[in-house]
């Protein structure tokens, strides 16, 4: 098999250029989908028969919770690729993903707490879903802090990669927590198998927001990756030519 394309893609100058060209293709559709989702979710969708208008929080809560896990998976896969095949670009991806994931995990927790107050009568319970999501936030914080605390770049890459990979155990726990344990948290609205438990005019804004947030993550990750590449390659000859 011919791996030349892969090595070319993983080379920093190539990745720097491609990331720059790709980012707007993620960013603009993301912005449009999020705006459409906001309009559909806040204006067009009818109030829920049980939760009234409070259910609309789902349009920011579910996409941020989804990103909290997608970003972690991205970070962990990149870290594993970097660790196993010693591809520096993969470590750069992992480093770029961590702060994004941390902010969306915090957003998922905050919007969940605000949603919990009127629906459950409490901001917080120490149940499996909420606690495992909080642990996810600590994992992000740990990965970021570990990277920041080691001066040598290669050692920082490897140490934070190991922590990121170990933390993957938490992802299925978060996902299945609502089925494995008794919890106040409602089960998933969307599942791969079976019909979504939501009417169409409530559902499409949610799908728009989920896809919009996902593309948004792609755009922000690519910009952060470019910054990360610049920092790592600051003495490389190609960079001088690129910046000249």
């Amino acid at each position, binding site marked *: 098999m011919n791996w030349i394309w892969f090595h070319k893609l993983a080379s920093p100058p190539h990745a720097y250029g491609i990331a720059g060209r790709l980012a707007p293709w993620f960013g603009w559709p993301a912005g449009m989908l999020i705006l459409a989702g906001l309009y559909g979710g806040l*204006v067009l969708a009818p*109030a829920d028969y049980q939760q009234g208008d*409070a259910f609309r929080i789902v349009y*920011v809560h579910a996409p941020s919770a989804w990103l909290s896990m997608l970003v972690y998976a991205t970070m962990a896969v990149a870290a594993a690729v970097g660790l196993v095949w010693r591809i520096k670009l993969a470590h750069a991806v992992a480093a770029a993903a961590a702060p*994004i994931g941390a902010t969306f995990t915090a*957003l998922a927790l905050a919007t969940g707490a605000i*949603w919990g107050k*009127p629906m459950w009568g409490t901001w917080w319970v120490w149940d499996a879903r909420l606690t495992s999501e909080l642990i996810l936030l600590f994992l992000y914080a740990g990965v970021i802090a570990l990277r920041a605390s080691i001066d040598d770049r290669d050692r920082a890459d490897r140490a934070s990669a190991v922590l990121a990979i170990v933390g993957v155990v938490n992802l299925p726990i978060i996902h299945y927590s609502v089925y494995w344990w008794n919890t106040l948290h409602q089960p998933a609205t969307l599942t791969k198998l079976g019909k979504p438990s939501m009417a169409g005019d409530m559902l499409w804004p949610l799908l728009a927001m989920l896809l919009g947030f996902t593309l948004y993550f792609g755009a922000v990750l690519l*910009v952060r990756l470019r910054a990360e590449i610049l920092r790592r390659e*600051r003495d490389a000859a190609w960079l001088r030519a690129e910046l000249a």
Partner: protein
Amino acid sequence: MSEFLAMGGYGAFVWPCFALAAVVLAWNVRSARRQLALAREQALRRAAAPDRA
């Protein structure tokens, strides 16, 4: 309009959630762009004076 803002009595819960989401979305874009601009500036400075940077 005021009915829309009231969100059926849940306005005090719904709007802070959307405001927080807006803050997180805006912060990530701003931070990413800032990081890139900073890194580019540093790289340029280093390229101009490789011995001192």
